């Protein structure tokens, strides 16, 4: 079998850069959280952070463990449906709904992950996709519960701690706070011994196994944690739009989060956050323009992949490297001329 998937795309060790620029990414993110609703429509701003939570979950698998999962919508959608159903028909407490979403995300990820981690490489990717399709078709046909193609509408957004969050900005604040919390938790996870073991599996699975780590079990843990994040994102998504569309559990959604994470840069903790920002902002802009916007999305996939691989983070770094070399070259060229 070929080397592990995603191996080549990962810049190695992240921890060094963390210690030197420890505070700056946090300042940038907190600034973005505060400023975003000023510039962007509140619903879109909210969606950006929800999608970022979703991306954080995927990136634990893709970026840190080297497992390219093409079925993350399974966990996102399942959680959205279950929590949405309970919110709609049983009026559960919003925190209960969030908790149930996280649990459903984690449990569905445990089931899917158990089957997927049995195989590696190409088979792994195809399995995640195929199982996603199974959940999709179940949701598609189970119309009495999910509403099938029409989606599951009428999901309420109940008050939190007695505060009304039906206003867009209020809900934005809740989601943004949960996003920052999620980012902090994910930072703790990837810097924990577990995170190091997962990166070790990414870099060299046989060696990790030789060191005594049960690679399959660790991958499953990554699945479960990633699924929990997806589940949280799913419930927040359902409450944002008041509906669970069938697409929320579809494979295009799974592909979108992979794409967003890659354009942000899957090697870093903040990559999916940047990717989500770019992706949601772009897709919301073009989807308003044209009903056939997935065509533009597909073109964007192709163009980014052919010409802007490495994502925004790398493009940014390349830009500064280019500026630096240009700055250095100019005087030296002048010096050559004097000889």
């Amino acid at each position, binding site marked *: 079998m070929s080397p592990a998937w*995603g191996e080549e795309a990962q810049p190695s060790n992240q921890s060094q850069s963390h210690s030197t620029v420890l505070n700056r990414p946090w300042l940038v993110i907190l600034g973005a959280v505060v400023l975003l609703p000023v510039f962007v429509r509140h619903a879109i701003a909210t969606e950006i952070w929800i999608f970022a939570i979703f991306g954080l979950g995927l990136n634990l698998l893709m970026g840190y463990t080297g497992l390219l999962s093409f079925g993350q919508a399974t966990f996102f959608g399942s959680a959205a449906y279950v929590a949405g159903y309970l919110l709609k028909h049983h009026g559960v407490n919003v925190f209960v709904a969030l908790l149930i979403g996280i649990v459903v995300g984690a449990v569905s990820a445990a089931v899917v992950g158990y*089957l997927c981690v049995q195989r590696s490489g190409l088979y792994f990717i195809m*399995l995640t*996709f195929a199982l996603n399709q199974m959940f999709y078709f179940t949701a598609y*046909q189970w119309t009495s519960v999910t509403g099938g193609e029409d989606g599951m509408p009428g999901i309420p957004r109940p008050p939190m701690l007695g505060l009304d969050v039906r206003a867009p900005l209020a809900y934005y604040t809740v989601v943004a706070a949960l996003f920052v919390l999620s980012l902090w938790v994910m930072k703790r996870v990837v810097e924990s011994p577990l995170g190091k073991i997962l990166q070790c599996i990414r870099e060299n699975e046989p060696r990790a196994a030789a060191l005594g780590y049960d690679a399959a079990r660790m991958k499953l843990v990554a699945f479960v944690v990633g699924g929990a994040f997806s589940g949280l994102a799913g419930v927040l998504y359902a409450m944002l739009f008041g509906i669970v569309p069938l697409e929320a559990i579809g494979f295009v959604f799974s592909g979108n989060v992979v794409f967003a994470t890659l354009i942000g840069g899957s090697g870093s903790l903040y990559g999916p956050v940047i990717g989500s920002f770019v992706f949601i902002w772009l897709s919301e802009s073009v989807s308003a323009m044209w009903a056939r916007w997935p065509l533009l999305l597909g073109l964007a996939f192709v163009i980014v992949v052919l010409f802007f691989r490495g994502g925004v983070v790398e493009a940014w770094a390349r830009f500064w490297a280019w500026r630096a070399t240009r700055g250095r070259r100019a005087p030296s060229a002048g010096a050559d001329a004097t000889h």
Partner: protein
Amino acid sequence: MNGALLFSQLLNGIATGMLYALMGIGLSIITGVLNIPNFAHGALFALGAYLLYTVIQVIGSFWLALVLAPVGVALLGIAIEYGGIRPLYKAGHDYQLLLTFGLSLIVTEAIILVWSPVGMSQLPPPILRGGFDLGVAIYPKYRLFVMVAAGLLVLGAWLFLEKTRYGAIMRAGIEDKEMVSLLGIDIHRLFTTAFALGCFLAGIAGALTAPIRGLNPLMGVDMLGIAFVVVTLAGLGNLLGSIVAGLMVGVAQSLVALVWPEASVAVIFAVMAAVLLVRPQGLFGIR
């Protein structure tokens, strides 16, 4: 339940199963040789069906369309490999995979734009219309034709891979690309050929399917998941495995459709999950 119905449904399962096997083999060749799960495989399947439809509209010959449609898909495949996948050899598989994913969206949307967002239907050629009396039941001629045609195509693919020199090179490419290129074989040409061959098989599977199930832009997406199931169960480059896996899910789907039609698609994936629980390595336990 009546016996004739059960028998017809079993035959339906075999016919669709053969088409699944064809999809699986095409995908298996691409995935095995190029190391990418081709996410555009389903969309190319749909394109094969739509090209058949248009060629019949323009020229009027089903038989010519059955040849031209997959050739058209294969030519597009060559263009994709040459213009998209080849520049990404060094960039890594993640990007090639995302490229095929983007292409699948583009092809699907292009079908909606060029043809129609709603489904269309395509009649079989006059000679294959109507039923054929099998004694137990009267069965549509066209489906019998599909069974035979798909069987011949699988046989052709087997003969090519097992009995010809280039087929042997292709199998070697699935096993060990580095070694193949060290032997002085143009590995890039091998990649292009494999991609074109896989696309041809997807295209002809789509063309054969059109008179059975009709055409709709999302037919490819549904097929992609099934092709993944076949490859996962069969193992890369395993033709016999692909046939067994294709027939298995095809027959399971048809039989479940009799008792619980809503679950007939989900059962394909359930069968895969069940097999993998018992045999994580797949039906034939390769790699």
